[in-house]
């Protein structure tokens, strides 16, 4: 479903990804774990075309993004990235809801203006998604009046409204109050249960263990090991994994 081949990413002189390759199967839930700054977020942002990379390719359900050497993209390149984005939804650490729009307006914005749905149809779709994230009563609230957990659930509904083939989560609970983390994880768990293909960068080890089919451990821009989360946690094969796990699990 998602195939990443030989991904190279430079930040001017700094070589972050030195040829990353990984496949994600349809319906699979892959978690990306590893220390901060190890490249998990950047990796997700590459899949969504928010970061350009210099070499390699990313295939998403037939759509493709190639490595590019320049900053300014041509109209054709922008369009092929857009095709990939239409297949994958993205959820951000800081929600990035549109502050000048209500919860409902946030959700229908892209379906109406990108997919060309008529407003009524988009609103019906949005209401069922709000129900799914248990926020049907909040449809007319502006983001500034929502809690962090509520904002993130609206953001998930907003991404789902585009009916993506896969969802990318970039540390979705990292900026939440502890008491609202659970409500977001529950939604994500439901989503996984429905068979959504998901790639999740997270520090929630419990979620990784319970929900993910596979974990990929990032360190310094490399994937140092992949495997079933439970097994990795119990018996990591790499010393760097062990060091990372002991730091997070001890907390």
């Amino acid at each position: 479903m998602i195939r990443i081949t030989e991904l190279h990413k430079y930040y001017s002189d700094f070589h972050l990804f030195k040829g990353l390759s990984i496949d994600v199967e349809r319906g699979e839930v892959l978690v990306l774990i590893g220390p901060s700054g190890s490249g998990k977020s950047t990796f997700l942002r590459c899949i969504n075309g928010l970061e350009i990379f210099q070499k390699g390719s990313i295939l998403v359900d037939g759509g493709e993004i190639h490595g590019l050497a320049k900053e300014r993209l041509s109209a054709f390149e922008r369009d092929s990235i857009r095709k990939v984005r239409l297949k994958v939804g993205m959820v951000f650490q800081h929600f990035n809801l549109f502050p000048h729009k209500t919860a409902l307006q946030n959700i229908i914005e892209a379906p109406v203006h990108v997919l060309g749905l008529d407003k009524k149809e988009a609103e019906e779709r949005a209401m069922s998604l709000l129900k799914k994230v248990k926020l049907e009563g909040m449809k007319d609230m502006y983001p500034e009046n929502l809690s962090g957990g509520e904002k993130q659930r609206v953001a998930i509904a907003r991404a789902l409204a585009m009916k993506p083939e896969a969802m990318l989560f970039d540390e979705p609970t990292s900026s939440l109050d502890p008491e609202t983390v659970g409500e977001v994880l529950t939604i994500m768990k439901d989503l996984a249960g429905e068979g959504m293909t998901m790639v999740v960068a997270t520090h929630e080890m419990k979620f990784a263990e319970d929900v993910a089919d596979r974990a990929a451990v990032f360190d310094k821009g490399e994937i140092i090991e992949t495997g079933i989360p439970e097994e990795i946690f119990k018996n990591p094969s790499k010393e760097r994994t062990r060091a990372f796990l002991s730091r997070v699990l001890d907390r």
Partner: protein
Amino acid sequence: MKRKRYYNFKLDCFGASPLAMTPLRTVSLRAPSLVSLRAKRSNLVSSLRAGSCEAIPLLKFLYLNIALFIFLITLILFSNPQSAIAQDTLEKIKSSGEIVWGSDAEGGAPYIFPDPENPSRLIGFEVDLMDAIARELGIKQRQFQNSWDSLIPTLERGDIDIAINGIEITPARKEKVAFSNPYYIYTEQLVVRAKEERVKEASDLKGKKVGTLSGSAAQGILEGIGSVDIKIYSGQVEPYKDLSIGRLDAVLLDLPIAAYYAKPNPLLKFTGAPIGEGYYGIAMRKGDDRLKEEINKILERLFKSGEIKNIYEKWGLWNSSQERLISGFGIRDSGFKEPQFLPSESLRVLSFLPFLLKGALMTIIISVLSMILAVFLGLILVILRLYGSRILSILSTAYIEIYRGTPLLIQLYILYYGLPNIGITLNAFTAAVIGLGMNYAAYEAEIYRAGIEAIPKGQMEAALSLGMRRSLALQRIILPQAVKIAIPPVTNDFIALFKDSSLVSVIAMVELTKSYSILAVSSMKFFELGLITALLYFGMSYPLSLFARRLERRLKRGLS
């Protein structure tokens, strides 16, 4: 004659413009995120983020302003400029060995102007005349440069001992200053294009566009004809230039000016007999009777000896009329009839109000239209700069930097007087609106940029991740938020534009400031008219500034 340039310092010294800006400037604090914007109004841009004006209630501001205003007025009323000059000027110049005479070299030939061969040296018939007078006084002479309109106030202030620069002896001026006996009899000369057939004399001017200089005798004559479309200029070169390219149908100005500037031009010709007649006199402070007597004696000597005739002949200014000046001496003032061109009876200040209000209306029209242009052009500029192709982005940045980095005045000159050289002739109104609009567009673009850059990057990313094209994301997500941030500083800019619009008076637009200076120069009521004009500006801009502040507070609440 003649002319004025740039800002009228009188407006400034009444404290009008600083006052109007006070409520805006004093409340602004800098927000770190926006400091990078180096626009001249960057503090305004940031004020909206800084939550500053909440601290001081609106009413308190109002009182503060009124108090300041009253304070300034009192200050002006009680400072009598005359009191500083108690000393007799004749004694003063004799003891200092130098007489300081005010004139405006910018006004030009043949009065006083920079020598084309050596621009640091001033020449002209009045320079020669002053050389002779100073020699007769046994002292040196020194020229003091100031704009022509301001010569008499400068004399009153005491910066100069006398003013000699084609100053016509008029009843209004005689109320303010004393004049020597006339040293030149001028007439007004009508000039038209060489191929002109319709205009043969002054009475043909009805319904025609006729150029002249601000506050000149010719202006009074034209007003007397009635239904002439009078275009007021600040310099004497420009009206003839506009005449030759067809912006005007005729120019009426003092003969010395016409002789120097129009006669050599093959595109132009003199038409009709000289109109009107008046006298140039040397202006002195009232009460300087001894100086006046001394100078009158010297003038008489110079006329009798033929030295003045030589000077005038050297500059091509001698004609038979001047003979009367020689024979006229000895009769003194009483022998000369007053020139009949100024509305001397209607000098009550309030009678000027309709004219000022007309100017104010023009100020509003120009400001509104140029602001509309600035708002939209600025938007295009910022979008090209931030999101356009490399070339477009560079071009837009260059536009912004050039327009912000050069004076508006120069831009207006180039637009109005420069473009005809490459075949583009804009009328004054269009040039004024385009000039102001294009200048402010550069500032608006920077305000928008600050607004756009204040929107977190995540907003664009979220929009893109939902499959929006960049243009759609801009239109639906980024700009609506950026506009909220930009509206208060844009409103503040509008207030600034309001006052900057006074600069278009240099391209023959009669707006409020120009109306003021026309009236003030002819009536000599600089103070009263200045006050009324300042109040009119204030009355127009203060509601706007209140509106801006209200908007600022309301929008701040709306931002998360």
